[in-house]
């Protein structure tokens, strides 16, 4: 009987995108070796296996390299045995992919900017947009334990950044976006997500992330400033 191929994950400590790939591996029950990148000085391994984007995460399965967190989650679901990350029916799968894409495309930018921009009307506009997006997710999670139903699925993992990183950004940036008064169901989901036994073991602690992002705060604020200088 042939040996199962090795699975390695190139990640960077504290990356919410890298977390998606780790969470998928953990939920699926796939053993893996974690390779942590220093994004300040990218390794040959990363540049070789993700020449197009040069980003983490990158999944290495045997001699195959898969990049882009959402693509990685689907690959993990198809290549390995274990609990399904997507529902069985085509319409349910389409819904899941739609929300994962929504989180990826529409969600991240206003969120990020609402934390790191200088105070002012433009920042307020991004906070408003971030909250509108949160409201849509609040609507989706109502009445469900997880976006995936009874257990964690693609959308939960795609939204995983919300569950842990938002609290961290709020603390570091001093901006409140996802309060439990405004988004009770989403906040409860966040608790369930971070406490889930599969997620818990691969999730960095809040304290560690606060320390990390505090050290990056200046840099992020600079980037936000440059992006929006008139």
């Amino acid at each position: 009987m042939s040996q199962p191929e090795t699975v390695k994950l190139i990640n960077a400590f504290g990356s919410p995108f890298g977390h998606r790939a780790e969470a998928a591996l953990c939920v699926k029950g796939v053993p893996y070796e974690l390779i942590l990148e220093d994004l300040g000085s990218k390794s040959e391994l990363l540049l070789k296996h993700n020449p197009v984007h040069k980003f983490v995460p990158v999944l290495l399965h045997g001699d195959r390299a898969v990049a882009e967190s959402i693509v990685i989650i689907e690959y993990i679901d198809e290549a390995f045995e274990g609990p399904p990350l997507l529902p069985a029916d085509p319409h349910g799968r389409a819904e899941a992919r739609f929300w994962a894409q929504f989180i990826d495309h529409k969600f991240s930018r206003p969120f990020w900017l609402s934390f790191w921009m200088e105070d002012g009307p433009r920042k307020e506009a991004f906070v408003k947009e971030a909250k509108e997006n949160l409201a849509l997710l609040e609507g989706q999670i109502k009445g469900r334990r997880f976006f995936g139903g009874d257990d964690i699925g693609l959308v939960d993992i795609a939204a995983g950044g919300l569950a842990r990183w938002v609290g961290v950004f709020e603390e570091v940036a001093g901006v409140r976006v996802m309060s439990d008064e405004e988004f009770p169901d989403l906040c409860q989901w966040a608790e369930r997500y971070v406490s889930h036994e599969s997620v818990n073991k691969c999730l960095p602690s809040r304290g560690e992330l606060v320390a990390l992002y505090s050290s990056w705060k200046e840099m992020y604020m600079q980037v936000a400033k440059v992006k929006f200088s008139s």
Partner: protein
Amino acid sequence: MAEEIKKGLVLLDFWVSPFGQRCRIALAEKGLPYEYSEQELLGTKSELLLRSNPIHKKIPVLIHDGRPVNESLVILNYLEEAFPDAPPLLPADPYARAQARFWAAYSDKVYEVGSRLWKTKGEAQSQARAEMLQVLGNLDGELGEKPFFAGEKFGFVDLALVPFMPWLTPSFERYGGFSVAEVAPRLAAWADRCMERESVAKTLYPGEKVDEFITLLKKKYGIE
């Protein structure tokens, strides 16, 4: 009286939309009959569109037995899964599928970056040009010497990317001051090869028509 559920496939679309064209080509390749419903996008959007895609209010929307599916790549994946007896566009192997999904998503950049070429000037436009050359280079490299992205057969990545070709030539080329044939010669040859397929030839509009449309948009948005 309760509204009767319309059986079958309806595609809410806009004639020149490359994202809609992805779906049209896929439906043709799979031999799936559907009702094409042209949507008014530059004026007032229809009730059906707003109801089917309340979040983005965009086309394409595929409605299957009354249930909407939104986002072109989500629609392509849906067609694969909802009609398993139709000819597949994705390969069977999980790694090949992951590659296909990666490059199909990447192809969105052609439109995204290309739009910046005609919407902006000066520094922003130069940046868009530099990015476009990189994107085309990456796509050309990924295609390599293969006839199609997955190899011998026309498939997922080909149909995700080919609708952007009439936007590249002549429009993005002219606004960006480059030539696809020069910077991505294999990609240019591939585009011609794709046009030999009936599904592609019957769906895509000539570059000149797309150019007219962009000029119309520029006027509408007051872009010089």
